[in-house]
């Protein structure tokens, strides 16, 4: 039980070094360590653990990892590899992460990260903070081509508006989201469950290299660390916290993307879901999210922007079918128009009888309709105007009379 150099190493180290060391000692998102650090500060917790004082049972868990702990070398090696370590208090530290301290825990994971290892040319605080901030686009690894298509185009829309797209660099939706953002030459952030120097999955080596060249690759795990199932769950809370909102594109019932969505709602972020065919298993989780939790249904980038952008910066658009000239007619006009024969012209009295309206009123309305180009009048009476050539849905008779009287 005697650690070598116990007295010497117990000396207090700086906050940054202590956080690196604690990151090595504990598993990411261990709420006990997060709480201790929040109460005592990282150097004190670090010192206590080195002295093998049992704090809340953490010491026995991390004892095996005490040997060979060398945070200064970790930092130096990372710096040489172009990886920086961010911790609270740094300019680049995104304020959004502190929300995690008050968000509770899921799967016994929770709390703000001790620090973040970051690779890439962009500033994390700028991507996550300024303007519309960042949005997480996540989903199933076993996505369908429909899902990857929607994720890609949505990410491209968002990135084109300057919104950073956060995802987890996994197969399926994640990679489609990153690539969509890259295709728009926009910012994207990959949050990993392993060291930022590793390529996991290895098929995404090129993708991660590209993201690291143009955006950011982020992880709370020290370089070299491998991914485990628990680390993926811990990683999800960072994805949710860094974004203003989380879009789930395709997620089956047991998908990890739903875990991210749960984190997002714990953090009071906007939770959004992209619907799929109701028969599609990879969309079931999303549908359930929309049905039972208050996830908003989104179908395109502008829908997302409307929900996450700061109030007053985006004008919401109501999507609707194209307008036809008939839409602007009053009910009486419509009634008369329906009564006008197509080919064989009829006198106003006949039109009035068919329409069930008074002749005097019908004549007035017919004149208005003629001016608007809906009907024409000849010696025999009234009939519908021949349709304009081309037959475009929008072009057509233009209303002048009674235009303002519309409903």
């Amino acid at each position, binding site marked *: 039980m005697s650690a070598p150099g116990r007295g010497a190493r117990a000396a207090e180290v700086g906050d940054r070094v202590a956080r690196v060391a604690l990151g090595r000692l504990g598993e990411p998102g261990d709420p006990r360590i997060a709480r201790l650090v929040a109460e005592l500060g990282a150097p004190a917790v670090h010192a206590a653990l080195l002295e093998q004082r049992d704090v809340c049972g953490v010491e026995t868990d991390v004892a095996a990892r005490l040997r060979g702990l060398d945070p200064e070398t970790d930092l130096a090696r990372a710096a040489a590899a172009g990886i920086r370590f961010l911790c609270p208090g740094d300019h680049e530290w995104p304020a959004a992460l502190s929300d995690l301290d008050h968000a509770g825990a899921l799967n016994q994971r929770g709390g703000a990260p001790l620090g973040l290892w970051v690779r890439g040319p962009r500033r994390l605080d700028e991507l996550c903070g300024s303007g519309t901030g960042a949005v997480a686009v996540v989903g199933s690894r076993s996505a*369908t081509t429909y899902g990857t298509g929607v994720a890609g185009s949505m990410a491209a829309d968002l990135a084109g508006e300057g919104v950073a797209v956060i995802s987890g660099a996994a197969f399926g939706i994640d990679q489609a989201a990153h690539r969509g953002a890259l295709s728009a030459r926009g910012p994207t952030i990959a949050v990993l469950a392993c060291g930022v120097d590793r390529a996991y999955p290895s098929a995404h080596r*090129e993708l991660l290299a590209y993201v690291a060249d143009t955006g950011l690759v982020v992880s709370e795990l020290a370089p070299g660390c491998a991914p485990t199932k628990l680390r*993926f769950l811990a990683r999800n809370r960072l994805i949710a916290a860094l974004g203003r909102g989380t879009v789930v594109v395709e997620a089956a019932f047991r998908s990890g993307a739903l875990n991210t969505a749960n984190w997002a709602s714990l953090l009071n972020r906007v939770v959004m879901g992209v619907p799929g065919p109701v028969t599609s298993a990879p969309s079931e989780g999303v549908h359930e999210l929309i049905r039972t939790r208050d996830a908003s249904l989104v179908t395109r980038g502008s829908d997302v922007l409307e929900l996450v952008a700061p109030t007053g910066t985006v004008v919401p658009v109501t999507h609707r079918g194209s307008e036809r000239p008939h839409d602007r007619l009053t009910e009486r006009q419509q009634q008369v128009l329906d009564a006008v024969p197509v080919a064989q012209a009829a006198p106003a009295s006949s039109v009035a009888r068919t329409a069930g309206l008074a002749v005097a009123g019908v004549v007035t309305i017919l004149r208005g309709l003629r001016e608007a180009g809906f009907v024409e009048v000849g010696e025999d009476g009234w009939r519908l105007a021949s349709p304009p050539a081309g*037959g475009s849905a929008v072009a057509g008779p233009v209303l002048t009379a009674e235009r303002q009287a519309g409903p």
Partner: protein
Amino acid sequence: MVVATTRTVSLTGATGHLVDVQVDISHGLVATALVGRPDASVVEARDRCRAAVTNSGFEWPSTRRVTILLSPADLPKSGSHFDLAIAVGVLAASGTVPRRRLDKTMLIGELGLDGRLRPVPGVLPMTMAARARGMTCVVVPEPQAAEAALVPGVDVIGVRSLLQVVARLKGVEVPDAPPVEATASAALLSWRGDDRVAELDLSEVLGMTDARFALEVAASGGHHLMLSGPKGAGKTTLAERLPGLLPDLEVEESLELCAIYSLSGGLPAELSRRGPEAGGRLLTRPPFRAPHHSASRASLLGGGTGRVRPGEVSRAHTGALFLDEFPLFNTDIIEALRQPLESGEITITRGEESATFPARAMVVLACNPCPCGDFHPRNRDNRCTCTEVRRRDYRRKISGPITDRIDITRHVEPVAPHEARDPLARPEPTAVVRARVEAARRRQADRYTATPWRLNAHVPGPVLRERWPLEPDAALLLDDRVYSGTLTRRGATRVHRLAWTVADLRAAERPGLAELDVALRLRSGDALVVESISRRPGPVDRSLPGTPLPAGAVPEGGP
């Protein structure tokens, strides 16, 4: 009594009948009679033969009664290739040519008035028929010797003139004669040059992940494919890259295809000229036929005036038939396509004639979603100006029975901007995909050794279920789909075949639930699961979190 018998072949469709030409020279009313149901082209042979014989320096028995019988007499005969057999028959009857070598020799060729031998269509199937009936020697016009030589086990003699034939039969020195030009044969309908199609590569196609996969599966198993989508989405672009994915023809396939080309007016001239040095077969690449929708019934399905000729459906045999704008084809043509789609052959019946041609092509149909081509199921992209009625009429052209016979349906979307600009997009080149297709086809060839089938799409349903069933759980699911009415029995068979092809592409032992899922999605047009179609470099990446990580990826301390 002097009767001489020579032999030749009469073709009905692709079936050859052995015909004995019997010539009798006797006293009586001086005349030359040709009997045995000859049609106009055969009746004319009488005049051609007389001139050719005389001009070659022999004597026509013009002072006798010459009766020429084409036996069996009840078989209608058509074509100009009877000339040589008739002329030699007359010469044999008059004693100019010895008769002993005639009964094992097949004589094929049209005579010019100067005695030169001209090429005729259908030499290859005729030679095949000759071999099947025990003939050992075939005399053909010289330009077609290479074509006839494709059939193993038969001596082929290419000759230029009647004089040369007589010399050979007599066993004397063969005199020289000027060469005869091969008949130039132009395709009845050629839409785009084969060369242009051969240069196209899949690496030029961006996006369309699942349509590309559908193409790969179709090429691997010989399945029929329907691509629908708005105009300009890339349906044609994709379909034209299909022939590049198909492996070279097997010898047997090449023979079948050559026989069809031979029937429809001779093999393309440049192919005939290449001759047997091209690996012993004339055609090596599978055909790609893309007839226009205004093509006539006869040119598409087969028929024509006089002799029944194979149509485009048969000319695409062993390859691919691409029908662009499918709903614009005549309704009766669409309905008539049912037979080749299902059975791989087409029968043309008219009058007392019934001809069957092989037509085992992969059929690729392309259709717009509506007549104007702008309809889009996603409302926001919809610029369609068609009325609902017109749209319904258009869709109705692709009748249920045809759709049921299509294995793979894919909706092709125009390439989205984010796909076109994706810096990480690496579309696979044709060569890479073709290697996989070839591997999958090899697996099928191994499995179907000693059966008449080559590809999954050819195997009849009952045999497939009996000898090559799905994994039990997959079979159960497929049955469920049939009982619940989402699949017809025919549809289920097609899904079963598709599942085998997916398994062959994955080098799986037997199709299970995973393969069946892909097959069902391919058939129904549902979006494919990306995982099931993407090819990852190694098994390492398949390890999901939670499963044991491979060596070298040991976690730095467990949780």
